[in-house]
């Protein structure tokens, strides 16, 4: 965005540095003078929350790594050592463990906010795709992190997920052996997962920098989806406006985080992971962490193994194509009455997929007399079809047939209650992208 590099170094030391490496100016233009639309609601605070959560995870993770032993005979023991003998080890571990869940809560809200307000539309496609890359990296990191305590779910989750690669034709088995570093999930697997679990967060950090950079080039979207037209009227400087608002939201988020850490630390985990991994004993139900459940449901709903793996991957990758699948010229769901209904149906479908993912596939959902009409896997198939239908059918068609509401002429007008009465195509000209 233009017009936000206003930093003037005052002290001679700052002038000296600024002439050689304008890093203070960069920080100043990114986090102080950066113009933010003045009508952002609290759903726009999750970016900052995610940034802080990443730092929380990295710091708590580095401390945990100082006390953890990545060896199949000692990993479980070393986690208990952290819980019992390390000073405040229980706190650091519970922070890290629940922090992962909080990270995903925040990222899913962040994504749904983007979906609702059309934050993926031009000119923010690259920003959005970078976000999808971050999500994929987060998933890989979380999956490998869950293996490290070497409990029953760690081992068997790793067995199930790594085995998925065997579905790849011709080279599948070879790839799985290569991933395992042997012929089963064993010590070499645990070692490389530890190594990669330590590496990936820094890669996430790198992509986050690109994500923020892209954001600062195109500027933030806002609840109206109307672009900033007048910097003075439509925006406020990031500091103090966005900083204080983000700080408030962050502390509220931390209240929830602390509630789980201190009063319900194992709620989001599985009891089975307090049993040390045993390759000879398969748990009755192998279930991934809650944040993977919708994707797990999609995987299980396809009867063919390769098909399931492809669909599960596609469920995430399809997000990257969203900027071109959504044909509507209106960004914000606030001015798309029909889209809004489909959006909430989609949210409900995602939640329901999560529930299906946690259930026994053979369980009956609907019965007619003694006849099972719908099993859990059947429900999963319907929901999977809808999930993809939302992106591949509903969004492309909706943009063509939907009659949008009228947009405000500007952000300033929407804030000052100037009414939402401007007809489409008048001052707002929604057909003019960007």
């Amino acid at each position: 965005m233009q017009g936000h590099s206003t930093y003037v170094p005052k002290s001679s030391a700052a002038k000296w540095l600024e002439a050689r490496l304008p890093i203070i100016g960069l920080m100043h233009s990114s986090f102080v003078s950066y113009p933010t639309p003045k009508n952002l609601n609290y759903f726009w605070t999750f970016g900052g929350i995610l940034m802080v959560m990443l730092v929380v995870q990295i710091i708590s993770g580095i401390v945990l790594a100082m006390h953890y032993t990545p060896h199949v005979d000692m990993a479980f023991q070393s986690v208990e050592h952290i819980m019992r003998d390390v000073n405040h080890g229980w706190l650091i571990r519970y922070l890290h463990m629940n922090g992962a869940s909080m990270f995903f809560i925040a990222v899913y809200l962040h994504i749904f906010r983007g979906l609702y307000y059309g934050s993926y539309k031009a000119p923010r496609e690259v920003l959005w795709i970078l976000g999808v890359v971050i999500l994929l990296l987060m998933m890989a990191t979380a999956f490998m992190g869950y293996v490290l305590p070497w409990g029953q779910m760690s081992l068997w989750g790793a067995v199930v997920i790594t085995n998925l690669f065997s579905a790849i034709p011709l080279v599948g088995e070879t790839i799985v052996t290569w991933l395992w570093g042997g012929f089963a999930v064993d010590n070499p697997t645990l070692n490389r997962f530890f190594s990669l679990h330590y590496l990936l967060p820094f890669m996430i950090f790198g992509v986050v920098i690109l994500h923020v950079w892209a954001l600062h080039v195109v500027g933030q979207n806002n609840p109206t989806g109307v672009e900033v037209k007048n910097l003075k009227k439509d925006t406020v400087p990031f500091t103090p406006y966005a900083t204080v608002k983000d700080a408030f939201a962050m502390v509220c988020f931390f209240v929830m985080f602390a509630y789980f850490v201190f009063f319900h630390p194992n709620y989001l985990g599985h009891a089975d992971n307090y049993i040390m991994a045993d390759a000879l004993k398969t748990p009755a139900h192998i279930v991934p962490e809650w944040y993977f459940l919708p994707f797990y449901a999609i995987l299980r709903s396809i009867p063919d193994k390769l098909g399931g793996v492809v669909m599960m991957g596609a469920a995430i990758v399809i997000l990257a194509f969203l900027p071109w699948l959504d044909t509507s010229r209106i960004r914000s769901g606030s001015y798309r009455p029909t889209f809004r209904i489909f959006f909430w149906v989609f949210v409900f479908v995602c939640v329901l997929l999560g529930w299906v993912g946690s259930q026994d596939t053979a369980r009956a959902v609907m019965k007619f007399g003694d006849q099972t009409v719908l099993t859990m896997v059947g429900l999963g198939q319907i929901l999977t079809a809808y999930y993809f239908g939302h992106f591949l059918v509903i969004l492309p068609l909706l943009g063509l047939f939907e009659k949008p509401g009228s947009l405000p002429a500007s952000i300033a007008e929407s804030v000052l209650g100037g009414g939402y009465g401007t007809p489409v195509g008048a001052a707002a000209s929604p057909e003019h992208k960007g």
Partner: protein
Amino acid sequence: MTMKTLFKAAAALTLILGLGTTAAHAAGDAVQPPRQSWSFAGPLGRYDNNQLQRGFQVYQNVCAACHSLSKLSFRNLSEKGGPEFKPEQIRELAAKWPIQVKDGPNDKGEMFERAPRAADRFPSPHANVEAAKAANGGAAPPDFSVLAKARTYTRGFPLFLVDIFSQYQEQGPDYIYALLADGYLKDGEKPPIAVEEGLNYNKYMPGQKISMVEPLSDGQVEYTDGSPATKAQYAKDVTAFMMWAAEPKLEERKQMGFRVMIFLIVFAGLLYYTKKKVWADVKSPKTVQGHAH
């Protein structure tokens, strides 16, 4: 999005949150254990030192013959927030423990056995898992260290959502207590399912068959504090002890939690009013004009 949609989103989120934990525990045929009242439940929950001491007594006299406690050290028994035995009691207890610990090599290069010290972890009753299996009809008795956190039962919808707010997290202790105190057949009762030789019927066990013969009976352990010497009381006490063994920092955690929550809520309040003040001139245009530079 309005406040209403915010609530909708929050409700959806709570749903997602809870769904993950509905992972069914085991075969659906096992009976749900009834809820017990535990001193360590809830936000103000604390362990009852006397109960933990009695529970340890039951462990020592009944369970320790087969079940290890490998992640705990003798010294843990005298730490704050636990049974809080006196350190000298612990030194004596360790010295008289029936199982020796392996140490060495000594200056001749030989491994040797010696009596445990307070700093040692509890030596296991069996040399290894295979030995434990061989001595117990093919099923190794599980280690007690984290067992109370490793057991649960399915709560189902919508209870798992209620649990977020009620802070019910004693599924493990409830299950263990039910299994010990009430799961086995009473005198003269016949098992409702066929039970093979070497197994026992227990209605709370997933699959309803368990290797362990009923371990507790009335009058088995002599309590010195006047608590009833009954099977139910033993089961309650040893379960509480197991919960402490699995979560020894529970009191410290909940106490710190209170301080953290109070700090965060006050801080959030201050930030809220700061935010309101900072944004006042954006929200109402009149003030903008009033404060125009």
